[in-house]
């Protein structure tokens, strides 16, 4: 180790995590087998809204291998347990109790009704068929507008309404801008549009799973979760188990994308059943259960009004949303659309702004966080509006954006929605993107294709986005009535042999924390990358944390690691000074060594760690340890931004869309590991593009999810996506010592409107100004040929998948 080593931060390190993952030496929750372990299977409601008249479990209890069968009343006779919602967005928010298993009534198809415990998973599943549930159908509430209609039946009679909450922000009232109604009245141009954010399934690849061992000294729960720490505290609060008697472990977790930010009824159920039986239990869901019972994402109707001058200056924006919560409130579900409130104004200087969101209950699977959470919806809305306004004004859409965006010399900039963007350079990212894309060349080709009436038309879509991430300053969360802070914890253990253990409260599930945190610590402490082990996801070793979501790991958790390292050095400095018989002020620390200024006398941090371990000769009053911990609460969000450009070909004869070129230049601030950043971009783009073109969770009239398998819910494979051109500019954040921003959600947030804008641009000359997502070939074709913008949906069936198989008449073989 020398002072001349090149910095680890910024290096494209290959990941430490990979070694076990590429060899199959993995520790997914479902891999865990414990002595005496039994298996749970959950009977799920086939009805979307019904009274439960009777549940007969007697036959199921007689089935081979069955140990017990429980209903909601068996597990919670008092009806006292409710699944937690941690984000009461308004004081008068309506919050129904969500039981562990339905009691008296089911409110969505897929809700748990009973649970079988058996010696094997197969036997548990066999017994499900023997449970007899007598339902009495109630009217099914589907669709936001239907649910809000005057005489609509109610999802929860006791609430007296399907309205969950109304959340508002108004720049006139807040004093952060003008009055939007006035801006609209005085505008030279006013444009209104309604957009629909279809419902999506997060579709992490690892189905959810949970193992509970009640025989361990602490009640131990392994779970495929993004939030082991929150899960521990919430389990304690929900069940009244003393918090110090619970240990939660998130072992290898196969993706989350927001879909594993939840406290599951099945987790609570597993805790209850394991304690009842006194033996370990495992619950692992099937994919069909994931689709119907795990929370969904998005599902909004957006009514937008934009006011502008003829020269393109935007003068006001009014946003009125309806957001579908599903049948109950998820852990942070009601707050998800509210995150969008701060992002509709995006990178633009909009002088007057109004946002109102009505959250609504329906008899559907609940919605909650999905990659981007509120910000993709907002970005879609504003970026689609900018293209529509440009078309209305006859301006080039990039020129219109440039006219309105915050210039690089205007940072820090406080927006109309009261956030202060610390840094950014939209001009630089855009210039680079336009070059990589060959904007002018593609515009020429577009004109030529139009000219010759080519059956394949070309369109160009733009999305110049920003987002707020690095969730979050605790005081801001407090002002939004969020039920927790936004800090993160880290600890560093200096081992006697000079090796280092880093503990983080961020819980990784694919992001590469072990690699990135090692790089950060290597620079901070001057120890080799290989000598650092990162521990996470077990509340016994990582006792404190707020986990991973909202692109917060690096910008909050990573900074906590820096702060902990600074404390290690402070502690080591005292001992080093004592060892070298000098004053602390005479020491400088660099490259892992304390050097007496102006001399070549030095001692390595490993030697200091060993001295602390031996503790034979420490200065008076100094504890024999360098170990340190820190909790970091960010002072601001971070604001990554970027320019995404999409060229789409539309086959006007079939409506098929082909992405011809996708270029994005993102600015995520300082980069710790460019390889990981690029990977995050690719994956984010794929999910955002999939929303634009392929994916939709669809319910039929009875509230049954018809896109309930991977054969029906269309995830893109490698054959369905293009290669992306990704690049970066680097404008450091000024609010944290690494200058980092966050990258986990950027690609998803930015790409959806870029794709839709490109498709609409390709066919705008046919009179098309919107097509509902997903842009299925039929929708595009009908938009071109008959002006219908939402053919086949909502309520459309994905079709053609496994659902098409008629098993009873199914041919043999």
């Amino acid at each position, binding site marked *: 180790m020398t002072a001349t080593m090149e910095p680890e931060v910024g290096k494209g390190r*290959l*990941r430490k*995590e*990979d*070694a076990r*993952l*590429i*060899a*199959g*030496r*993995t520790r*997914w929750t*479902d*891999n865990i087998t414990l002595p005496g372990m039994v298996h749970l299977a959950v009977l799920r409601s086939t009805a979307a809204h019904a009274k439960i008249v009777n549940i007969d479990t007697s036959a199921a209890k007689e089935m081979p291998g069955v140990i017990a069968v429980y209903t909601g009343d068996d597990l919670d006779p008092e009806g006292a347990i409710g699944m937690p919602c941690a984000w009461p967005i308004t004081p008068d928010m309506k919050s129904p109790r969500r039981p562990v298993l339905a009691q008296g009534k089911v409110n969505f198809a897929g809700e748990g009704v009973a649970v079988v415990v058996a010696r094997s998973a*197969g036997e548990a599943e066999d017994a499900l068929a023997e449970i007899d549930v007598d339902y009495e159908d109630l009217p099914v509430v589907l669709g936001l507008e239907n649910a809000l209609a005057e005489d609509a039946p109610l999802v929860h009679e006791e609430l007296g309404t399907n309205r969950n909450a109304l959340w508002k922000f108004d720049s006139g009232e807040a004093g952060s801008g003008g009055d939007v109604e006035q801006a609209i009245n005085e505008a030279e141009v006013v444009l209104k549009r309604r957009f629909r954010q279809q419902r999506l399934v997060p*579709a*992490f*690849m*690892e*189905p959810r799973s949970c193992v509970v061992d009640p025989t361990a000294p602490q009640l131990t729960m392994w779970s495929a979760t993004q939030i082991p720490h929150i899960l521990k505290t919430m389990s304690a609060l929900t069940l009244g188990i003393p918090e110090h008697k619970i240990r939660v472990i998130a072992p*290898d*977790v*196969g*993706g989350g*994308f927001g879909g594993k930010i939840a406290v599951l009824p099945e987790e609570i159920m597993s805790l209850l059943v394991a304690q009842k039986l006194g033996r370990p239990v495992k619950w692992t869901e*099937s*994919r*069909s259960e994931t689709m119907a019972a795990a929370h969904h994402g998005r599902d909004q109707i957006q009514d937008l009004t934009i006011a502008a001058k003829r020269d393109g200056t935007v003068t006001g924006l009014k946003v009125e949303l309806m957001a579908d919560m599903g049948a109950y409130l998820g852990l942070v579900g009601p707050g998800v659309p509210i995150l969008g409130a701060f992002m509709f104004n995006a990178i633009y200087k909009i002088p007057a702004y109004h946002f109102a969101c009505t959250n609504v209950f329906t008899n559907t699977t609940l919605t909650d966080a999905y990659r981007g959470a509120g910000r993709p919806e907002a970005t879609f809305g504003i970026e689609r509006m900018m293209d529509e306004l440009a078309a209305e004004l006859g301006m080039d859409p990039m020129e219109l954006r440039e006219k309105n965006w915050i210039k690089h010399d205007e940072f820090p900039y406080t927006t109309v929605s009261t956030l202060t963007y610390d840094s950014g350079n939209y001009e630089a990212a855009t210039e680079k993107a336009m070059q990589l894309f060959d904007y002018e060349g593609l515009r020429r080709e577009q004109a030529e294709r139009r000219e010759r009436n080519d059956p394949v038309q070309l369109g160009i879509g733009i999305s110049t986005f920003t987002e707020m991430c690095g969730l979050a300053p605790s005081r801001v969360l407090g002002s939004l009535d969020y039920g927790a802070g936004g800090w993160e914890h880290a600890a560093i253990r200096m081992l006697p042999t000079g090796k280092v253990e880093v503990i983080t409260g961020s819980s990784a*599930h*694919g*992001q*590469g924390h072990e690699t990135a945190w090692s790089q950060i610590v290597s620079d901070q402490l001057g120890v080799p990358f290989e000598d650092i082990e990162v521990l996470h996801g077990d509340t016994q070793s990582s006792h404190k944390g707020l986990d991973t979501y909202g692109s917060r790991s690096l910008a909050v958790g990573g900074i906590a690691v820096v702060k902990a390292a600074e404390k290690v050095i402070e502690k080591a400095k005292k001992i080093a000074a004592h060892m070298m018989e000098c004053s602390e002020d005479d020491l400088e620390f660099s490259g892992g060594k304390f050097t007496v200024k102006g001399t070549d006398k030095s001692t390595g941090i490993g030697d200091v760690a060993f001295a602390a371990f031996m503790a034979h000769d420490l200065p008076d009053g100094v504890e024999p340890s360098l170990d340190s911990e820190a909790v970091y609460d960010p002072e601001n969000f971070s604001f990554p931004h970027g320019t995404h450009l999409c060229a789409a070909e539309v086959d006007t004869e079939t409506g098929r869309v082909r992405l011809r070129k996708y270029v994005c230049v993102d600015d995520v601030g300082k980069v710790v590991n460019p*390889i*990981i950043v*690029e*990977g995050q971009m*690719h*994956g*984010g*783009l*794929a*999910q955002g593009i999939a929303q634009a073109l392929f994916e939709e969770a669809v319910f039929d009239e009875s509230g049954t999810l018809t896109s309930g*398998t*991977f*054969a029906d819910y269309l*995830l893109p*494979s*490698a*054959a369905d*996506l293009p*290669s*992306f051109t990704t690049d970066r500019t680097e404008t450091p954040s000024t609010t944290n010592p690494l200058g980092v921003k966050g990258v986990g959600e950027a*690609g998803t947030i930015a790409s959806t409107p870029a794709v839709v804008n490109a498709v609409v641009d390709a066919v705008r000359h046919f009179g098309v100004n919107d097509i509902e997502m997903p842009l299925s070939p039929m929708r595009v074709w009908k938009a071109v040929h008959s002006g219908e913008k939402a053919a086949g949906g909502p309520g459309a069936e994905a079709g053609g*998948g*496994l659902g098409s198989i008629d098993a009873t008449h199914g041919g043999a073989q």
Partner: protein
Amino acid sequence: MRITVTVDGTTYTDDVEPRTLLVHYLREQVGKVGTVVGCDTSNCGACTVHLDGHSVKSCSVLAVQADGCEVTTIEGLARDGQLHPVQQAFHDNHALQCGFCTPGMIMQSIDLLADNPSPDEQAVREGLEGNLCRCTGYQNIVRAVRDAADHMRPGAGPEAERVAGDAGSRAASSVGGGGE
């Protein structure tokens, strides 16, 4: 029913129910938990293994159907501590994030390269159409497979993965296995 199956070079004789899927047999009876289950409909491909040298989705094969067969899983690829070139290429090209799809992706990529030792981008994308990944957007997976192709000499490497049976048949995992 009693079956005898060779998994990653070791022969096992076990009693199984006829309804036991090959993937559940591998995970629960043989202990090969590196192979995972991601769906119910054979779409995701996470459970892909090689059955007598060809990639199959082990959720869509019964364990009894593998009686007398040889199975190679992700856990049987490395030889003498040396990663298979495709495993190495997945690491080198950051072709995985959460890693759940990775066993299936690697097993299918090896099969693909056995059929087409130097695929272009489109051929790789089509060859992996039966495997879903939610993290990577596939770009680095495609890059990894092409990178592996560059590092593999068809026919080179250690013994074929099949330890018995017709040596002339195509054994996907043996192609270029183990590097030079």
